[in-house]
């Protein structure tokens, strides 16, 4: 396909006010793209959490002080056989003591004698149905064997975490709306100053037969070009930012730190951002120039 240079009848290339506009629009696009990336990654992270903790409970038996190590092991075996016989449990895992020590060692320090600590027995349980553990036969079976303990429910914790992430996504959404509004305001500023600069030529063009649609199209061609350059610049910079972010955070092991993830729709949103900037510029230009032309002539 042959490259065809965009023809302007108005001397837009001399407009000094729009000189840095692609850079500003590029920055706004970058902000928008990074917001999309963040929303995508947070969504992915919360979905992972949701699937990991859904119908999961931890059953805890507090350490009985006068119980010997052998008795604890037999208690674990007894517990294991009760759980296996329960129809409500799809899978379970008795957390080994070594694993428990790993969890508490950062707080107690390396010098602690962990073997002497009264560690509880923790069992991760996956329930088949959406029933609360209290409504299952497991409770009766545990009572029959005089095993008492309590269930840790993750629902409350996850609910507050999800509420926080939803607020975060909402905040990012507000940032994106702000980006679009600022883009519109910038386009209005550019077109207003350009209109003032080229007013004599526009009046002359009107005089020799140019209609409003033609004048608007001239401005639209120009602002579309600025938005396209800004959009592509922004996409390029956001790609660089995301690559740097990806490699910097690759080695950070934290479930709270979102790893970059793009589902297909989010990748499309990201690639469509320059197009959105063009659409905003096109619409804003049309409305603004039409309003001014009606006031002027």
């Amino acid at each position: 396909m042959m490259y065809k240079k965009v023809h302007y009848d108005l001397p837009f290339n001399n407009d000094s006010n729009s000189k840095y506009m692609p850079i500003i629009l590029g920055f706004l696009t970058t902000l928008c793209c990074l917001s999309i990336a963040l929303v995508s990654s947070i969504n992915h992270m919360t979905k992972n959490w949701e699937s990991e903790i859904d119908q999961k409970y931890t059953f805890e038996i507090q350490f009985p002080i006068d119980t010997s190590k052998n008795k604890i092991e037999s208690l674990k075996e007894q517990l294991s056989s009760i759980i296996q016989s329960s129809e409500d449990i799809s899978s379970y895992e008795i957390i080994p003591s070594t694993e428990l020590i790993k969890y508490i060692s950062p707080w107690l320090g390396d010098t602690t004698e962990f073997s002497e600590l009264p560690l509880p027995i923790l069992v991760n349980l996956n329930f088949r149905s959406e029933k609360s553990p209290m409504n299952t036969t497991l409770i009766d079976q545990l009572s029959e064997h005089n095993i008492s303990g309590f269930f840790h429910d993750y629902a409350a914790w996850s609910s507050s975490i999800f509420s926080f992430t939803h607020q975060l996504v909402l905040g990012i959404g507000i940032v994106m709306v702000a980006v679009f509004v600022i883009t519109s305001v910038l386009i209005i500023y550019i077109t207003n100053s350009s209109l003032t600069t080229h007013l004599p030529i526009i009046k002359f063009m009107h005089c020799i037969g140019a209609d409003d649609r033609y004048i608007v199209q001239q401005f639209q061609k120009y602002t579309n070009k600025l938005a396209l350059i800004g959009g592509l610049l922004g996409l390029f910079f956001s790609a660089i930012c995301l690559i740097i972010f990806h490699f910097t955070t690759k080695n950070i092991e934290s479930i709270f730190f979102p790893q970059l993830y793009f589902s297909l729709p989010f990748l499309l949103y990201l690639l469509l951002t320059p197009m959105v900037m063009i659409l905003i510029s096109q619409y804003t230009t049309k409305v603004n120039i039409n309003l001014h032309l009606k006031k002027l002539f």
Partner: protein
Amino acid sequence: MLKDICLNITPGSFFFLKGASGAGKSSLLKLIYLDHAATNGDVFILGKNTKLISRQERAAIKQEIGIVFQESLLLNHLSVFDNVALPLRFQNRPDKEIKEYVYELLHWVGLGGYVDSFPPTLSGGQQQRVAIARSVISHPKILIADEPTGNVDDQIAVRLINLFEELNKTGTTVIIATHNEQLMEDFGYPKLVLSNSQIKLESQSRQIISEVRA
């Protein structure tokens, strides 16, 4: 200021408009090419009352009117080609057609070799011919020229009027405002004279101008 003027122009006519400075020649022409609106009374252009038309209709009427000013009023940032092509671009004509018409017109005004030149590099006469080419390229129904020969020598002035005559032969109504008595005498077309805000026809020809009433 113009007062109590009734002027009915027959399509295809050719006449000069004369009058002292400030007599209202430009005002009358501006009323015709819709740059001004009448404070009182009605102006009908191409059968439409200019007070009752929409912005779109106004632009459409303007596209049927070619205007040549005393100053050529070319856009210096555009080439000769692009200046002449403007009215066709307003009408959203295809590029191929625009190219064909512009080349044809520029040859007609004797500027075939200046297609890619820019107005500041042309002489006054050449600029005026470019302006004429621009004003007639869309084959307007009315051609208005406001002192078109004011800034050119007599030889070029005659040539410009010859171009207007050629256009008139194709059915375009031509109205030329001028001070140049010699030119008006040489060509002998009817003269509309504006004086004291009134208008009168100096060379009676009811075939060309059906009615002039002061």
